[in-house]
């Protein structure tokens, strides 16, 4: 084995020794494994990766990695990640969180992160429920799902995050399933490798509050069609599928947003001449 091969971290080297707060059987364990596998596949080093999150079950993920982590406030992960990546383009920055964090309280940031197209990867573990607060409807919950906060269901139709991402300008749009660790790792690796804003929606069952989601493994299937770079075709497919087609559904070629930094053109004394009488 060569020295450089020895030096390359394995997936386990990206995991910390912290014990997750997640319930046994939670899909997020597998997403954590897929994410760390993707880092290893891309031959990244833990110190050059930052994982940023907001609040919720899945947002606990950064501390379970051995990367630089930032666990901020509810819904604002993409804003923190944007500031970090623009200021430090040398880092690999991944934002992670859930459907409530990303699509509800963080919805505006989601739209604008897609639009801005900073070179980030956003992994949303979607389980159609607020788990940390013990079972309320999120923006992706079915309208008739009965729960304590909305007896009989909210009556409000769920929104389709992939269409929103596409319409807002995300350069890479994919759907994955937590139960397929290897496949999800591949998708996340492609997302990280793709320049610009990459959005990966991972169906990640909450077996505590949505035990029926155990059935998702029977419903998912590889997307029957190849990745497209045509947003109109991608939109038609995403809007007409049943939500269980897995794969990279759109991969465009927009230029990422990255203003130049570190190029000094003036000294402070030159700048202050602008005030001089």
């Amino acid at each position, binding site marked *: 084995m060569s020295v450089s091969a020895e030096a390359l971290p394995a997936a386990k080297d990206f995991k910390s020794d912290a014990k997750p707060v997640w319930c046994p059987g939670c899909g997020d364990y597998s997403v954590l494994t897929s994410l760390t596998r993707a880092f290893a596949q891309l031959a990244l080093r833990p110190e050059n990766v930052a994982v940023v999150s907001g609040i919720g079950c899945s947002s606990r993920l*950064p501390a379970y990695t051995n990367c630089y982590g930032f666990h*901020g406030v509810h819904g604002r992960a993409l804003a923190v990640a944007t500031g970090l990546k*623009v*200021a*430090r383009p040398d880092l690999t920055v991944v934002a992670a969180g859930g459907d409530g964090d990303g699509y509800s309280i963080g919805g505006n940031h989601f739209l604008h992160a897609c639009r801005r197209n900073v070179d980030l990867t956003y992994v949303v573990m979607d389980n159609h429920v607020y788990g940390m607060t013990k079972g309320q409807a999120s923006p992706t919950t079915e309208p008739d799902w009965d729960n304590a906060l909305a007896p009989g269901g909210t009556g409000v139709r769920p929104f389709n995050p992939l269409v929103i991402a596409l319409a807002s300008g995300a350069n890479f749009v994919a759907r994955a399933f937590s139960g397929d660790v290897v496949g999800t790792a591949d998708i996340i690796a492609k997302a990280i490798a793709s320049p610009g804003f990459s959005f990966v929606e991972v169906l990640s069952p909450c077996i505590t509050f949505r035990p029926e989601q155990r059935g998702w493994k029977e419903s998912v299937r590889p997307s029957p069609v190849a990745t497209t770079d045509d947003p109109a075709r991608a939109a038609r497919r995403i809007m007409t599928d049943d939500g269980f087609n897995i794969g990279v559904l759109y991969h465009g070629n927009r230029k990422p947003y990255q203003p130049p930094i570190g190029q000094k053109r003036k000294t402070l004394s030159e*700048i202050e001449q602008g005030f001089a009488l």
Partner: protein
Amino acid sequence: MTPQPKSPSSISIAISGSGGAGVMTAGDMLLEAAALAGCYGLMSRTSGPQIRGGEAAALLRLAREPIECHGDSFDILMAIDWVNTERFAAEIPLDAQSLMIGDPAQGSAPAEFANLGARPLALPMKVLAKKIPHGRANMVALGYIASLVGLPATAIAEAIRRSLGANGDAVTASLAAAEAGRAAAQGVDCPHRLAPGGNDRDKRWLITGNEAAGYGALKGGIRFVAAYPITPATEILEWMAPALTDVGGVLVQAEDELASINMAIGASYGGTPALTATSGPGLSLMIEALGLAISAEVPIVVVDVMRSGPSTGIPTKSEQSDLNIALYGPHGDTPHVVVAPNSVADCLMTTQWAVHLAETMQVPTLVLSDQSFGQTRMVIDRPADFAFAGQRKIANGDAQSYRRYALTESGISPMAIPGMPGLMHTADGLEHSERGTPSSQAKDHLAQLDKRKRKLDAADYGRHWAEVEGDDEGDVAIVTWGSCTAPAREALAQARADGVRAKLISLRLLSPAQPRRLDKLLAGVKRVLVVEQTHSGQFHRYLRAEYSLPGQVRALYRPGPLPLRPSEIHRELVQWSGS
């Protein structure tokens, strides 16, 4: 020796008119001409609610000595026309000594001005302007005022040339119109004359508080700004956008203030000193993430250019009423730093200092500027340089078993920056252990609360925490902050001329409070007058909570948008001393 406040002799001039009349252009040129003639001065702008056009007034005060606020009344009102001018009556107080100049072709002054006893003068601006190809009434007005107050024709000509630059036709027309105005002023008796200025204009700047804050941020080392536009803070962001690029930094426009402060936090977590600027409504949105930055110990600077609140309030006009939210905004126990500039020029030093405090203590620092600083253009002496070079305490790369929130004696824990091998950790808004691992344990909570408080308590804020002027041994002390400082200084000078022995204390460091230091300054003082621009006495309540004020205490407070006038404060001092 303690600096001695002076009461400057000055001339206050208002130029008003409807949209398109060019009052701001004339005002800017007048200020620049005065500056070129060696004088000091300032100009603020007031306008109706229209986005473009609509009535407007340029409010100037010019003097031989440095000047930092508006006076009690205006010596000259120049109305290019009278459309809606009555809306400015409260902002442009006139008295029997004032001159009120209008164009007979534009009708007569509204009752709000006509009944004040000011001496009316007629200047046929429109007629004079028409005689000159492309001549404009505002330039006639400019030449007329300049002549009345004794500004040399060369200064006006130079100001016109600087302002209009390469536009040769406009320069020719403006010079001719100004000359026509100057000629029309011959023989007019004006009691308000500007004493000739000095000739060290090379050391002077023309600058607004917002520009000064932006430059102070750069000098402090800010290299990332996240921006969401808001009146009256936008000019900080607009000034910084190209300037940051010039020094190798970057500005990002955010989708809202929730994003802008979180972007700043992200950039700072990555090791780049970061700032955002806003006003009250934006600050309200930022409070959530302010608490995050306190808990996660991420240094950021937030400049709040205060305007009248609550809610949307009066976006274009000043008030000091964001003090409470700045001090007490975040939920939980949240030690953080709040500083306030005491003049337009001081926006530079105070913002630079804020970066230094934020970076050295790994704490969010708020700068409470206000509209009256931010949007006032002023002639100042080039401010002194301060060597604030706030350096973050960076973790040692060889550290074994790194603890991001280690309980140190100073309370400051070495910070690892992404990219440093072996020091990976998760910064967290959840309460945490020393390692940063989330913890709901009582001992971790107490230890981290103590540590976050300790780093502010133990810090050395140096001599910049307050400015003190006047009599070292006096019976009376004015305690104030921010934009009330300059009118209080003028009131103090008048009171001392009346024989009152008094001092002025203006706090630059609002939080954490420095009770022992203020105690020393107030030793022997029998009367304390607290001065502020709020409706509920926010500063007075804060002082009562954090400080022991000796003797009798009175509070002089009222809301914006009108500035506190020196005479209001002087009256309070004199009446109290006589009672």
